[in-house]
């Protein structure tokens, strides 16, 4: 046999190389990875990210925070990191009902609210329920402990469901159900994590089945990525500060988060690439459909999921949940119930409960207010009634023109107003004791 020359062997090897490169490129072009890359590079989405999941799915209550968890969080806008911060702990009680600090208190208060009651201004300053605790201690001279069971984006009914279960074990003297205007009419929501190659998107739905069937839900603007650490944030902010924005956007951790969110928004909840060896023509069909605009048309035509989180009317809530039974159980348990309206900034400014921020029409809004009044003896206690000497509005919230998150001054104000609002209830409780 005639031996092949080294030159010929080299040419064959180069040809094979070329075939490999071309094959891989064709595969890439036809695969969904190419689509995913496009999605990342054209992303206009904004979402919050966490280095670790701050909550766990809970079949009974939708989701529950993890009080022992510290994590990095930040905001990504249009594919770029905007800010980062480290949260050292969450407010959800990290002790049980038998803890001496709870049992030994003269007055035990359990607060069930939303984001406004949960968030600490600047991540460090006390939240308004913490200020309320201090203010009540000052005013009453009693030892007061507030357990804050607030969760972001939950409505009145979901809080009532949690309160009815927790109160049995915790036996608070006072239960504060906080109404935040933009959220109080929200249906109960379940949140589950859907992992896409080490990065998770948060899927929300009004059914617990979302945990096993994520297609039932919608993707919340929240992404979990364990690679998003404090150090990663520092290096991102550093390269941006020296003008290397494009390099920052090229980072694999950032792109994985953006990709996961964009893929989640497409409603697939799994990687576009469902097994890299499974090349089949469906990729080609998908590719052609999406490049011909067929998918956009398909998305526009599709019906929104019936399990999409939304508001409901009081009557709808009543038909699904026996609110009177729940409320009576709370009252029979010996707790004083206070439904407290914590105003949004314009409501504080105008001293009124403004329906336009509730997402409900006026009859629906009024029906909720009447319904809640009927549920409780006391009706709704409005913080705005106690706000006689308001500080400069600009010091109460981050930005009166849009960012209504409370500042440290605002949280202190709300805490003091809440304490004033509760005093009558506490006096009743004290006289009972």
């Amino acid at each position, binding site marked *: 046999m005639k031996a092949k020359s080294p030159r010929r062997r080299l040419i064959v090897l180069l040809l094979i190389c070329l075939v490999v490169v071309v094959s891989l490129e064709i595969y890439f072009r036809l695969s969904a990875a190419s689509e995913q890359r496009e999605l990342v590079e054209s992303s206009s989405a904004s979402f919050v990210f966490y280095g670790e999941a701050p909550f766990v799915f809970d079949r009974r209550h939708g989701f529950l925070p993890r009080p022992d968890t510290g994590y990095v969080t930040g905001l990504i806008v249009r594919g770029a990191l905007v800010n980062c911060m*480290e949260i050292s702990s969450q407010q959800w009680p990290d002790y049980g009902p038998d803890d001496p600090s709870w049992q030994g208190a003269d007055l035990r208060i359990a607060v069930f609210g939303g984001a406004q009651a949960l968030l600490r201004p600047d991540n460090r300053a006390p939240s308004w329920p913490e200020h309320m605790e201090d203010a009540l201690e000052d005013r009453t001279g009693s030892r007061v402990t507030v357990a804050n069971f607030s969760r972001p984006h939950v409505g009145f009914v979901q809080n009532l469901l949690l309160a009815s279960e927790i109160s049995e074990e915790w036996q608070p003297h006072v239960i504060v159900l906080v109404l935040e205007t933009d959220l109080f009419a929200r249906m109960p929501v379940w949140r589950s994590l859907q992992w896409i190659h080490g990065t998770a998107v948060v899927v929300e739905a009004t059914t617990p089945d979302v945990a096993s069937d994520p297609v039932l839900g919608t993707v919340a603007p929240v992404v979990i990525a364990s690679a998003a*650490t404090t150090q990663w944030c520092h*290096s991102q902010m550093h390269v941006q500060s020296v003008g290397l924005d494009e390099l920052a956007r090229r980072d694999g951790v950032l792109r994985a988060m953006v990709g996961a969110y964009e893929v989640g928004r497409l409603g697939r909840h799994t990687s576009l690439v469902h097994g890299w060896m499974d090349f089949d023509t469906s990729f080609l069909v998908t590719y052609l459909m999406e490049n011909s605009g067929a998918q956009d048309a398909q998305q526009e035509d599709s019906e929104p999921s019936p399990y999409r989180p939304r508001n409901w009317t009081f009557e709808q809530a009543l038909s699904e949940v026996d609110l009177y039974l729940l409320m009576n159980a709370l009252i029979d348990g010996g707790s004083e119930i206070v439904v407290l309206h914590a105003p949004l900034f314009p409501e504080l400014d105008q001293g009124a409960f403004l329906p336009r921020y509730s997402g409900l029409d006026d009859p629906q809004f009024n029906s909720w207010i009447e319904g809640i009044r009927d549920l409780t003896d006391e009706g709704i206690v409005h913080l705005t009634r106690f706000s006689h000497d308001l500080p400069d509005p600009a010091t109460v919230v981050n930005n009166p023109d849009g960012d209504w998150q409370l500042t440290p001054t605002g949280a202190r104000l709300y805490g003091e107003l809440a304490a004033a609002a509760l005093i009558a209830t506490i006096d009743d409780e004290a006289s009972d004791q």
Partner: protein
Amino acid sequence: MRHFWNALLLIGSLALSLAVVEAGYRLYLKHDLEALVERQRTQAERGLDDATVDARFSVYAPPAPWQYNEHYGYDYQQGQWRFVLLQGPNALACGQVTGGNEFGNVGVEQHDYWESEIRILFFGSSYTQVTDRDGRTAADLLESGLEERFGLSFSVLNFSRDATGLLTSFDMARLLIPQLSPDLVIFAFNGSALGYRRHWRTMVPVTDNIERLVFMLEPLGADGGLPPPERYVPMPQMVSQLVTTELCAHLPLLPDHPTQAEMEQLTAQRLPPEEQVVVERLFSARRQILAEPQTPVIAVDFGRLDRSFVFHRIVNGDPYYAISILNPNTIYSSLDIQDYAADPAMMEAVEAVLESGIPFVLLHIPTLAEMRNSDAGEILHGTHGIDQATSEGLVASMERITGQQMHHLYQWYDDDEKRDPLNLVNSEQDSHPSPRGTLVLYRAILRAISVLPETQEWFNALENRLEVADDPEEGL
């Protein structure tokens, strides 16, 4: 058999081809990232906004204010520091400030250290370099306060170094305690000092007669050379032989401690053409420096064998999928260890300090957030640019290896002053002590060393000397 060998050859060729493709792709990616950085650098240089270019900046006359020290990073240059103040391509004024002293510290020592009856070494950072309204640091105030209380001569040497932490201070203490035989050693730092890496400072040339400051994560090499590029960070501060007495002869002289109003009144000065050329050269060097990234920014291991960049490009659309391409190991990032015991040099330094038998205290200076949120005096881990686990681990390990507690000074702050924490710091964003804060900090340090068990014996001995002095008969 022939088919077998042919198949084997084909498979081998394919495998080799894949390896070649992977290697080629890695080379391409490396070049692509470097080109991207270079392209953006150029854009950054062009896009330097007017505000940055027009900002005021100083250029020092030689010698540089920082003097390389191979043992613990740097000292401050002894003598006066002369500088010219510029704004854009214009000169505003010249100035002269009191620089380092014979110990390499900032400021003037009020007393002769060796003649003093009681000698204290004080280690800190920029938090303990700031002064009260009379230009006195917390260490200066402590010296006066102790003298007033005990009627003895005290000398407190303030070895505070900006941008340094506990690692550097223990390196210093290890070297200086045997040399200076102090009676007491005080370490006083804010939270971020827990995580500071060691760094060394030296000057490198920009042009023939302009140098710039460089921070290094390791000492100069045996040949005096810089460490590898990823281990040093060029800084914008400049020193130049072009800053001469001839140049300053044409410019107003700034007072020692200019007021805000005096600074605002400064305007661009008309200079003779030969001096204006000098100023424009300094400005040009400044522009060049500002346009450079201050630290190596890329950190991708293109030689790693546990990952295929081709694979991730094909499967996930991104060769760097889920890995960071940015350098996390900058001088600004905190330590990546959670235990000082993992640092052999630190362990040696702590052992040396313990063996010296000199009493020492570890004091924690509160930031604004801590003043607002921790009345009881707890360190708010995770709020100083160091992640919570690292911060907690470092405090715990510091207490373990030294056998001493790290004390939060806020518990000794005056109650009246606690009502307005913002008054005690520079601003919401800057927790360095304000002039008022420096005074309150000093009082807290004095209270701390009078009650802490670590210093109790030392303090009681001073009290006893005071009693003996008050009662001459007992002294006899």
